[in-house]
């Protein structure tokens, strides 16, 4: 088997590096202009001409080899270590045709490491519109490299790039610039001390810690005779090096890069002016958010109702079709109810991610990050913290991993600690079902109360995050300041393929990722709710029959039977009248009697099921924690749901769906079952405004996600921070929910 060519894709953020990677490898992967999207190692295989294969490594985006973050240090560490298994045979530097000057800084640094380099000038399709003309031959000659002019949007130039990679041996590995001229004496001493080492590599090793905290690396034995310079002197030399590089780049671009300013349109500048305006920018963002939440509610209600009905009917069908027994009950009441509790939220989650993907793809999200940076500075957060906080609306886990781009450790730690406050997709099912139950229908300025509540919860989560950051900032006393440098990508029409892929991936990730946990918990809960050890559980039917005979049905069941019977009588008379018949008194009485018997049997079954559930293993556990959750307005069933959702928030809805299905023999939707639930103490609906708001606030602030805790542990390398996070957030959520319920009840 022939040896694969090892290729490293390197480039500034937002140059379309990931798109080039996709074109080369064909691997499906997220593509977007969101800053910091490439935060990890990605690899793939590319077929080159003449049967040659290349191993492509997509490295994190970096502006230069002067590292300022963990992400960037990954690139430098690889390029400095020839023994690394991924050390490239050839480096492919991706640049953006509109930002070539800045992108070439990184190119010249890599070239000076004496690695064969190919320069990709991406987004070539924009050249005409922007009035850009390039002299590729001159650029190739001056930069001593080969260039591929690529448009990943149109899929052009990739074949040329593959050809260049296949012929990488013909590339020059001579450096572009002699760095030693910035301090000849110092470099002479360096050369004398390490005669066998490459000077530019040594320089990078020495200066690596100037901007960034020390990272783990193998210690080098430095002779006592060699004295390096102080940090400030090294920093000054680094600046001289950068100036030298830009002088070199400017000289080349003056001849080879022309921009016809008349051809360049000023639309982007005008749009930026409006969208990042300190008043209109926020106003537009606010209006976009309003429109998104309203659309989520308006568009998804029909598919949601359909899914709810479908699962209710499916459950009934299973019971009617399969042989009666406990396993049939498990499928109907445990598995289907649990899955239904998750699947029902697919439409809303898909719509949310559709809008987020459209905002990202169009380039607007970067403007939002810029806007938010301004807003967050007074709270002591870096502009780079905005990226994790916005990513947190999908899932806190990748968001916490995205904090690796933050250079300052304390700022990074604060961002890690506050990110779980932002409303992740796991909270969405809880919010949606509770809002549907307790927030009345109605509109304010054309926007439904329910959509407004959902938006308020998102803002509340974001507010809680920045407020906590402010407190942590004061406690931790951050003195150092970092600067937020972010590139505004061009506006573009979203690629439907990318948007569709994002929606599909995120929805699939939610359903399959959370779905497995929810399914497992639903099965266990059904088992615990259908089994018990006490006499009360096994003799439930006798006990309930006796109770009905002596005390009668519960008030709720009596009222329910009366209203059902009245409704039945009215419907029957209407139906007869429509057909032109008149029902005689005897027939009406007989019919009503039959219906009453049927309703009584149903009510009895319900009371038996309810009594059994109360005395099952689950009921006993729920009652044990009831005193703790009762002050929040929750009964023992909600208590169980809160407890199980410590694994993952979305388990809450699945748990309630399972609990309310155990023993149920009628076809009904989850929402209807929940809205019919009566508080045994107050005799009012259990899910009312007070208890509903209490649940919403509890879930807005509580740290209920084991996976997030695990990732915080990994990122902080300590159990101290996740433990503190869990205790603080849970206590805070409990207190806020308690206050809300006690005020509103």
């Amino acid at each position, binding site marked *: 088997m022939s040896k694969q060519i090892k290729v490293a894709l390197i480039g500034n953020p937002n140059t379309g590096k990931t798109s080039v990677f996709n074109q080369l490898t064909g691997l499906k992967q997220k593509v977007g202009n969101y800053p910091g999207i490439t935060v990890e190692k990605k690899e793939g295989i590319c077929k080159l001409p003449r049967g040659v294969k290349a191993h492509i490594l997509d490295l994190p985006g970096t502006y230069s080899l002067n590292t300022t973050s963990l992400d960037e240090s990954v690139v430098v560490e690889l390029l400095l270590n020839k023994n690394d298994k991924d050390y490239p045979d050839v480096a492919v530097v991706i640049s953006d045709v509109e930002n070539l000057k800045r992108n070439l800084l990184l190119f010249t640094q890599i070239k000076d490491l004496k690695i064969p380099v190919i320069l990709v000038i991406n987004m070539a399709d924009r050249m005409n519109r922007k009035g850009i003309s390039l002299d590729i031959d001159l650029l190739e000659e001056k930069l001593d490299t080969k260039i591929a002019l690529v448009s990943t949007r149109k899929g052009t130039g990739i074949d040329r790039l593959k050809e260049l990679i296949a012929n990488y041996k013909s590339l020059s590995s001579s450096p572009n610039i002699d760095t030693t001229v910035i301090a000849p004496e110092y470099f002479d001493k360096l050369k004398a001390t390490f005669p066998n080492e490459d000077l530019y590599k040594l320089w990078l090793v020495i200066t690596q810690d100037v901007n960034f905290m020390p990272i783990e690396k193998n210690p080098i034995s430095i002779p006592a005779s060699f004295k390096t310079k102080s940090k400030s002197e090294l920093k000054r030399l680094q600046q001289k090096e950068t100036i030298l590089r830009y002088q070199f780049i400017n000289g080349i671009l003056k001849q080879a890069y022309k921009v016809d300013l008349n051809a360049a349109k000023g639309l982007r500048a005008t749009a930026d002016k409006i969208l990042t305006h300190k008043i209109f920018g926020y106003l537009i963002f606010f209006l976009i958010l309003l429109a998104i939440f309203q659309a989520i509610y308006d568009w998804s209600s029909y598919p949601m109702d359909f899914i709810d009905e479908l699962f209710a009917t499916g459950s009934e069908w299973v019971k009617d079709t399969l*042989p009666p027994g406990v*396993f049939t009950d498990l499928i109907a009441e445990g598995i289907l109810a649990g899955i239904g509790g998750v699947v029902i939220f697919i439409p809303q989650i898909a719509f949310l991610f559709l809008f987020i993907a459209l905002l990202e793809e169009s380039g607007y999200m970067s403007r939002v990050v810029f806007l938010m940076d301004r807003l967050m500075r007074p709270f002591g957060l870096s502009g780079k913290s905005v990226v994790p906080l916005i990513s947190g609306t999908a*899932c806190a886990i990748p968001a916490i991993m995205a904090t690796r781009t933050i250079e300052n450790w304390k700022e990074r730690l604060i961002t890690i600690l506050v990110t779980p406050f932002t409303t992740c997709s796991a909270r969405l099912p809880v919010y949606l079902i509770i809002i549907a139950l307790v927030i009345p229908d109605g509109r304010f300025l054309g926007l439904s109360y329910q959509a407004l509540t959902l938006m308020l919860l998102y803002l509340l989560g974001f507010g809680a995050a920045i407020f906590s950051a402010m407190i942590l900032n004061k406690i931790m006393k951050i003195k150092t300041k970092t600067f937020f440098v972010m590139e505004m990508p061009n506006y573009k029409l979203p690629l439907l393929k990318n948007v569709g892929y994002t929606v599909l991936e995120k929805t699939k*990730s939610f359903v399959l*990722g959370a779905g497995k946990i929810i*399914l497992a918990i639903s099965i266990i809960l059904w*088992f615990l709710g259908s089994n018990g050890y006490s006499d009360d559980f096994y003799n439930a039917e006798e006990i309930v029959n006796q109770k009905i005979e002596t005390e009668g049905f519960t008030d709720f069941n009596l009222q329910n039977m009366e209203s059902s019977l009245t409704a039945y009588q009215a419907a029957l008379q209407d139906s007869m009248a429509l057909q032109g018949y008149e029902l005689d008194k005897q027939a009406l009485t007989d019919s009503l009697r039959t219906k009453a018997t049927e309703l009584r049997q149903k009510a009895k079954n319900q009371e038996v099921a309810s009594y059994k559930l109360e005395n099952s293993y689950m009921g006993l556990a729920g009652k044990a924690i009831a005193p703790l959750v009762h002050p929040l307005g929750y009964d023992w069933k909600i208590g169980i749901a809160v407890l199980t959702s410590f*694994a993952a928030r979305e388990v809450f809805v699945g748990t309630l769906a399972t609990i309310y299905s155990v023993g149920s023999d009628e076809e009904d939707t989850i929402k209807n079952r929940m809205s019919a639930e009566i508080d045994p103490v107050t005799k009012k609906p259990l899910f009312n405004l007070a208890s509903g708001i209490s649940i919403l606030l509890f879930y807005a602030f509580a740290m209920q996600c084991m*996976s997030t805790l695990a990732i915080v542990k990994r990122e902080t390398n300590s159990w101290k921070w996740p433990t503190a996070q869990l205790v603080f957030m849970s206590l805070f959520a409990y207190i806020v929910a308690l206050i809300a319920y006690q005020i509103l009840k």
Partner: protein
Amino acid sequence: MSTVQDILVYITVAIAVGYLVKKFLLPRSLFARKKNSSKGCGEGDCGCH
């Protein structure tokens, strides 16, 4: 028939418990796969899948 259904229930519950124990209690390194997945949030061992 009811015995068969009982057995099926116990097997299903045992699988569910086993899955949760594996997911949340046992060390992740026991089940580490060699190849990273490029799906979902980007990192196969992040724990959210």
